[in-house]
């Protein structure tokens, strides 16, 4: 099946109040073309589940984010995400803050259609205090150990970005870390994948080791060719992070006017215009 579509067609699946899963990690291989499309569409009251970076920051800055589910939110080379910080410090954002490993188990539980997965992570920490919905579970075996039952992180729609894909939705991560994009797809009712380049299945298979074929076509409902679709986050080996634009983005958290200018130039424009603006 040919699943090719545009970013805007994919984002049409998102409506107000939905829970969105966003792949990548921090400021690394984030599906930014989808994030920009979410901004253009203007959907509101979103919950985002993410190893957070500028995806969460941008949706905080545009006021579209109601709630964030995260272990951290970071721009990597800028450790603290300034737009996310601002939203948290203004009390403008609901939050579920988890240990990074708990977050992974929540994704896995959702992908496996389980209510929860057990772990030691979180025990003794204030993660249990700030998340009163989290419960512990006692091992039914002789050890009787008390563990945290991390609830499934089910999402309505997931967005991921890969280096290569074919038209039917097989996807390839050519960088050194696959992150957890496959789990985001499996935790979602529907998942959409953008990629740097759509190639033939032959070219996909010969384009990297088999282990790089992280996404299979069962996992996604749509494929978008979006060159530069992770920009300004990194997407190795295709491109590094655009540190200059990231710094410009980060600096706008201090200055309403600068943010409005950034938004007008880079967000309230088509994806093609964005790519044109950053190519200069």
């Amino acid at each position, binding site marked *: 099946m040919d699943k090719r579509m545009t970013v805007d067609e994919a984002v049409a699946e998102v409506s107000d109040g939905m829970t969105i899963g966003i792949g990548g990690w921090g400021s690394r291989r984030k599906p930014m073309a989808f994030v920009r499309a979410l901004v253009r569409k203007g959907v509101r009251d979103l919950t985002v589940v993410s190893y957070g970076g500028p995806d969460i920051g941008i949706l905080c800055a545009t006021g579209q984010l109601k709630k964030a589910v995260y*272990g951290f939110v970071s721009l990597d080379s800028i450790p603290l995400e300034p737009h996310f910080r601002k939203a948290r410090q203004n009390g403008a954002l609901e939050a579920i803050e988890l*240990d990074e*490993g*708990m977050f*992974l188990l929540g994704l896995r539980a959702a992908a496996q259609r389980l209510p929860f997965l057990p*772990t*030691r992570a*979180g025990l*003794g920490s204030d993660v249990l205090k700030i998340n009163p919905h989290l419960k512990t579970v006692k091992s039914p075996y002789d050890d009787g150990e008390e563990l945290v039952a991390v609830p499934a992180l089910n999402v309505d729609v997931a967005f991921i970005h890969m280096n290569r894909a074919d038209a039917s939705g097989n996807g390839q991560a050519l960088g*050194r870390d696959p992150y957890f994009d496959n789990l985001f797809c499996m935790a979602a009712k529907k998942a959409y994948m953008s990629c740097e380049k759509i190639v033939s299945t032959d070219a996909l298979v010969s384009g990297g080791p088999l282990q790089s074929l992280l996404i299979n076509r069962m996992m996604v409902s749509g494929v978008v060719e979006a060159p530069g679709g992770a920009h300004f986050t990194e997407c190795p080996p295709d491109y590094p992070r655009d540190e200059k634009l990231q710094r410009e983005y980060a600096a706008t958290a201090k200055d309403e006017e600068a943010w409005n200018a950034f938004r007008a130039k880079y967000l309230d424009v088509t994806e093609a215009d964005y790519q044109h603006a950053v190519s200069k």
Partner: protein
Amino acid sequence: MNSDDVTRADVCVLAIAECFRNDGEIMVSAMGTSPSLGARLAKSTFEPDLLMTDGFNLLLRKALPFGVEPSDRDVEGWMPFGAVFDTLWWGRRHVMMGASQIDQFGNQNIACIGRWEKPKAQLLGVRGAPGNTINHVTSYWVPNHNARALVAKVDMVSGVGYDRAAGLGPKGSRFHEIRRVVSNLGVFDFNTPDHSMRLVSLHPGVELQQVIDNTGFELVLPDRLDTTPVPTPEQISVLRELDPQGYAQKEVVV
């Protein structure tokens, strides 16, 4: 800088390296400049079996100087985030993290300052601190030892301390160990009957009163006060090779 000028930063980095002594064949994850340099010093000298990454996902055969990109010949394995979680849950890991706040039982906070619901300052979030501390050995690095960092009570427990771990009972706490805290003033551990923080040694040039004045809780003082060892000329030459730009020198408040 002459190679024979030993600085406070050098003393700190050696004290950090000593945290990893006898760790053997486990993975070290050292967050930040001085921890990373200390781990590299340990691997380059007395603890060669340690596994260390390039800070991302490549396991490296030997410690490289800051700023040197690993070549294929430097790589011995692969450690993407998925494998990091498996390794830390397996327990074969010693992490050294920073601490925006740490209390007398080693509860650490990197999440936020103030009330979590509406923090005065949102920091990193808990990241991996809860899972790290309950699953394997942890040490901490505090480059600016003061009473705002070493506090009676942290605003949010990210890394689990000994009192919290004890509350979980012997099963829940059996993999919990906070090995040491290294600050710009001294070295500290928790080898006391109730696992409250104890001064182990003062760095050369630091007065006991300075540590007491800059700590927001009552430290346990040792019977005999030691001075933190100073790196040997051989260790200093390794340090200068690993950190030619002197990044660690800029991190430490003297």
